[in-house]
């Protein structure tokens, strides 16, 4: 049997889970993008279907594998959603530890994005600097949970282990370092010619469009709409240690850079405050194997925005249904609007602006409307094209 290239990607005939890599078909008039058509599902692994065949606890490890960058947010969205169905009081210390690790994850995710944006814009030194700094956060995450990526730290009823002795002081030192670096990067992205030329005025969206297409996270906040699940509908210990919601009114990629750097600074503040206010006591309670029948709707503010979970239990040891809506899926329609009117050379930076997964850049189809000609351009070729285009300008 012959397969199309898409058909050869890993696929489970079940439900979407990893919705990150996207395919965009770009319709061009000359250099100008006039229409964009998304096609997703290339790394569809059927995690929602698989969850219906696994126990409540096993599913924690399954859901955190939806995304390697915000794995912890998937696991807390799932566990806190399930915990809503069971009449258990989760220890307060566990709630604080969840917020601590969630904010560390936000810092490393935003740093990862900033580095990637530097790479796509042709500023690889920035990429190297930032990813070196990100290692500090990953090392802390490993010291807390034993793992850098899939941390498996949260569990039903609390977290798996307490904060190791002596780690709090190291975290404070690292937060001071990251805060200092964030100030430096903020000055850099606002003044460095390459970054300014590639991001200012690019991928602009406004509040009207945001209300229509319902994007989430920094993309939404870059239009000046101050919506953040942590502040609006607190979970973990965000009621005690809330964020200062960062917004911008420019709605372009340049404003997203500053906004995310401000969020890094605020997350550093929250990590330190969480350590200060964290109560003593147990970090976990025993949780039943069966979850009472019912439905729970839960969401968290992942680094890329609102991450949504719907959980339905029929009272057994496995869920009847778990629905996941990742942040990127909510942002795809907005990204297609962000691209319109720009030139092909802007695609890498504008698409990276919405903070998608790496894979998306490898699947760009280009259609020349005038010549009715279609071709595919790979990620690296598109990156070089963008860099050369702006060098020539």
């Amino acid at each position: 049997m012959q397969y199309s290239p898409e058909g050869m990607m890993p696929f489970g005939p079940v439900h979407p889970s990893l919705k990150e890599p996207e395919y965009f078909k770009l319709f061009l008039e000359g250099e100008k993008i006039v229409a964009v058509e998304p096609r997703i599902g290339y790394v569809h692994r059927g995690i929602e279907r698989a969850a219906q065949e696994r126990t409540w606890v096993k599913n924690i490890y399954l859901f955190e594998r939806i995304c390697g960058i915000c794995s912890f947010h998937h696991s807390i969205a799932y566990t806190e959603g399930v915990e809503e169905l069971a009449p258990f009081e989760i220890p307060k210390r566990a709630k604080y530890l969840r917020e601590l690790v969630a904010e560390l994850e936000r810092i490393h995710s935003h740093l990862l994005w900033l580095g990637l944006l530097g790479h796509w814009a042709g500023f690889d030194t920035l990429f190297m600097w930032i990813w070196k700094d990100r290692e500090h956060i990953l090392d802390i995450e490993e010291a807390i949970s034993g793992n850098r990526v899939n941390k498996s730290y949260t569990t039903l009823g609390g977290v798996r282990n307490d904060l190791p002795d002596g780690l709090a002081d190291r975290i404070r030192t690292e937060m001071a370092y990251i805060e200092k670096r964030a100030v430096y990067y903020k000055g850099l992205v606002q003044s460095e010619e390459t970054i300014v030329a590639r991001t200012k005025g690019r991928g602009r969206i406004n509040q009207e469009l945001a209300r229509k297409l319902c994007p989430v996270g920094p993309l939404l906040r870059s239009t000046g709409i101050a919506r953040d699940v942590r502040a609006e509908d607190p979970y973990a210990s965000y009621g005690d240690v809330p964020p200062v919601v960062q917004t911008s009114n420019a709605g372009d990629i340049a404003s997203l850079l500053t906004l995310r750097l401000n969020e890094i600074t605020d997350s550093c503040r929250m990590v330190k405050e969480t350590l200060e206010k964290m109560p003593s006591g147990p970090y976990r309670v025993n949780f039943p194997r069966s979850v009472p029948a019912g439905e729970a709707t839960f969401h968290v503010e992942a680094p890329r925005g609102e991450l949504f979970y719907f959980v339905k239990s029929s009272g057994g040891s496995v869920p009847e249904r778990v629905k996941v809506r990742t942040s990127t899926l909510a942002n795809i329609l907005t990204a297609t609007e962000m691209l319109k009117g720009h030139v092909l050379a802007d695609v890498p930076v504008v698409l990276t602006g919405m903070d998608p997964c790496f894979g998306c850049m490898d699947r760009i189809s280009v259609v020349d409307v005038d010549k009715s000609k279609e071709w595919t351009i790979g990620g690296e070729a598109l990156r070089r094209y963008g860099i050369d285009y702006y060098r020539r300008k």
Partner: protein
Amino acid sequence: MSSEELAPLVSRLGGTINAGPKTTVLTVPPDRVVDACKGVSSLPGWYHLSTITGMDLGQDIAILYHFWQGKRFVQVRTQIPKSAPRLPSISGALAAGTLYEAEIQDLLGVAFEGNPFLGKKLLLPDVYPPDAPPPLRKEADPHKIKKMMELE
């Protein structure tokens, strides 16, 4: 949002309200779903459609539209028979629902009339067997489908 705030909408559309601790569920007949979603999203501050969930209930398929504001969700809920899985699309009124409907079309086989992805695939590969049940339906057996696709 309290039941009282939704009461005028329910009396106009016909349906029931069930207010839980965090979610208010507004159940409506399938042909009133677009009006119900438009009605909720036009209430002050309720423009955000978080997502749409599809659930196979055995004989029927439940479709849940999740709206969020502050500490509460409003869920517009409807049920359609599996034997006639068709529903009007909200994408004309609420563009944010376009991809969520397309996802349910792929995975549960519900046709959302008026959605630009109607009849097109968003998530499933082009080679997905046309005679296989949609993958998230209870009768779908992943191993059988893989065999049909010559992947096993």
